[in-house]
C-alpha cells in the first residue's frame, strides 16, 4: 500500500532510544519502535511498565529526556502537543477525557479545529467563509459519528453517554484531527465482551481507512486478535517485540507477567 507521505519501506514512525526520566526514576529507558503505515501494533506490559508514559512523550505531554521521535521523517519529540496533533498523531486517554458539557457532535467538531482556519472576523461578520467552513466541519463530524455508530446521539451531552459510547466518541474526536497514526490508551478498559467485540471491529475499520493504530491493551484476547505486532515494555525497557504468538512464548515476557493477569 502506497501513501502520499513516505515511499515503500520508509516507516511512518521511528522511535530511537527514547527515554523519560522523572528525577531518579527511569519511566522510559531507551525504547526503540518502528511503525509502518497501516499496521496495528499493541503495546503490552505489567502495570507501571511505562506504556502510558511512552504515549505521553509521543504526544508532547512530557518532553522526553533523550532520544528521537521521527514522524514522517520529521523530529517531533518536545513539540507542543497541538503541533504534534497537527502533524498527524492523535490519541485517546486511559481515563476518558471528553468535553463533558458539550454535545457529542461538538466534541467531534472540536477535533476538526486543527484542520480548519476561521478566526474571529468570519464568524463575527457572518461572512460566506464562516457558513462554508461550519458546514464542512459539521458534515465531517457527523460522518465520523456515523463511522463510530453514534450518529443518533449527536445532540446528547458527552457526559450523559454510556461508558462504551464515550470511548467510541473519544475515538471519533481523535479521528477528526485526520491522523495518520492514532494512539489508543486501553480502549477496551471496562467494556463487556460484546462491547469489546464492536471495538475490535472498529479498530480494524480505522486501519482500513489507512490510519496506523498503536494501542495499549490489557485484554490478551484483543491483543492476539488484531495486532500485526506486539511490543512488550517492562520497567521502561522494551523486552520483546514480534508477532503476537511469538511474543507470548518469549521467556522474558512470561517472566514479567508471571502471576499477573493473562486471560
Amino acid at each position, binding site marked *: 500500500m502506497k501513501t502520499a507521505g513516505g515511499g515503500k519501506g520508509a516507516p511512518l514512525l521511528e522511535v530511537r532510544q527514547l527515554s523519560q526520566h522523572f528525577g531518579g526514576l527511569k519511566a522510559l529507558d531507551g525504547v526503540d519502535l518502528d511503525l509502518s503505515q497501516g499496521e496495528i501494533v499493541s503495546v503490552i506490559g505489567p502495570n507501571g511498565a511505562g506504556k*502510558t508514559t511512552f504515549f*505521553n512523550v509521543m504526544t508532547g*505531554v512530557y518532553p522526553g529526556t533523550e532520544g528521537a521521535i521521527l514522524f514522517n521523517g520529521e523530529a517531533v519529540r518536545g513539540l507542543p502537543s497541538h503541533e504534534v496533533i497537527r502533524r498527524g498523531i492523535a490519541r485517546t*486517554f486511559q*481515563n476518558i477525557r471528553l468535553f463533558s458539557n458539550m454535545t457529542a457532535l461538538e466534541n467531534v467538531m472540536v477535533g476538526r479545529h486543527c484542520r480548519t482556519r476561521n478566526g474571529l472576523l468570519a464568524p463575527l461578520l457572518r461572512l460566506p467563509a464562516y457558513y462554508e467552513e461550519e458546514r464542512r466541519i459539521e458534515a465531517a463530524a457527523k460522518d465520523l459519528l456515523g463511522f463510530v455508530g453514534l450518529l443518533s446521539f449527536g445532540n446528547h451531552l458527552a457526559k450523559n453517554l454510556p461508558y462504551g459510547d464515550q470511548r467510541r466518541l473519544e475515538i471519533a474526536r481523535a479521528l477528526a484531527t485526520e491522523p495518520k497514526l492514532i494512539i489508543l490508551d486501553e480502549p477496551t478498559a471496562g467494556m463487556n465482551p460484546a462491547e469489546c467485540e464492536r471495538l475490535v471491529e472498529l479498530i480494524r475499520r480505522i486501519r482500513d481507512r489507512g490510519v496506523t493504530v498503536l494501542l495499549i491493551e490489557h485484554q490478551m484476547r484483543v491483543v492476539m486478535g488484531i495486532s500485526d505486532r506486539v511490543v512488550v515494555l517492562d520497567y521502561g525497557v522494551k523486552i520483546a517485540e514480534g508477532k503476537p504468538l511469538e511474543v507470548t512464548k518469549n521467556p522474558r515476557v512470561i517472566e514479567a507477567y508471571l502471576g499477573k493477569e493473562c486471560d
Partner: protein
Amino acid sequence: MFLQQLVNGLTLGSIYSLIALGYTLVYGILVMINFAHSEVLMVGSFVALAVFRFAPAILPQGPVGLIVALVLSMAGAGVLNVVIERFAYRPLRHAQKLAPLISSIGVSIVLQNAVFLWVSTQSESFPELIAATQFSIGGAGVSSLQLVCMASAIGLMMGLHFFIEHTKVGKAMRACSDDLETAGLMGIDSSRIIALTFLVGGALGGAAGVLYGLNYGSIKYNLGFLPGVKAFTAAVLGGIGNIRGAVLGGFILGIMEVMAAGYIPRGSDWKDVIAFSVLIFVLLLRPSGILGEKIAEKV
C-alpha cells in the same frame, strides 16, 4: 534602623502567618479559597472585645487575661468557621469548582455587614490586655506588645505542628489533605475531618484577630479584608496547602512590607504594590509557590 524594621516586620509577619495557616489548611483539604476567612478573623477580634465589655472581670490585664481572650476568641472564630462550612460550603462539595468560592464571598459580605449593622459602624478601641512598655534591644525599640504577639503566634504554630504531626486526628487531617477520597475509603470520616480543619483554621484566625487588635489598638468591621488578602498572598507565596510554606510566606511578606515602607521613598504608598508584584514574580518563577510541590497532571 534595620533591626527596628526587622522587629516590626517579624511582628506583622507572625500575624500574617497565623491567618495564612487558616487559608492553607482549608485549601489543602478542599482545594477552595475560603474567602470568608478574613471575616472569621474580624469576628474573632470582636469576640474578645465583647467579653471585655460584658465580663471585664475575666480579662484581667496580664498574661492570664491574654490567654483567656485568645482561648475565647479562638473558640468563637473556630465554631463560626465550622458553621460556615456546614451551611455554605458542604452542600456545594460536588458542585462546579467556583460555586464554593462565590458562596464564601457571599458569607464574607454577610458577616461584615452583620457586624456593621448590629455591632459597630466605626473603630472600637481594643482592650489593653498587656501593658505597653518599650524595651531597647541592640538599639531597636521593641514594645511588649510586639513580643507578646510574636510569642503567641510562634506558640500557636508549634501547637499546630504538634497537633498535625503527632496526634491521631492530626494524621487523619494530613491523610485527607493528601487525598480526600482515598482517606474516606480508608475509613476516615472525611466530613468530620473537614469540620475539624475549619475549626482549627478558624481558631488560628481568631487568635490572629486578637493579636491584630492588641497590636493596632483598635478594631473595625472591615479590618479583615486587607490582612486577609495579604495572608492569602503569603499562603500562595509559600505554596498553598503547605503548612510550613504558609508560615514562611507570612514572615517574608510581613518583613518585605515593613522594609519597603521604611527604605523606599514614599514606600508606604507603594508597599502593597511591591507585595503583590513580588507575589506575581514568585509565581512566574515557581508557579506552585516557594515550598509547594509541583503537581504533574495525570494524563
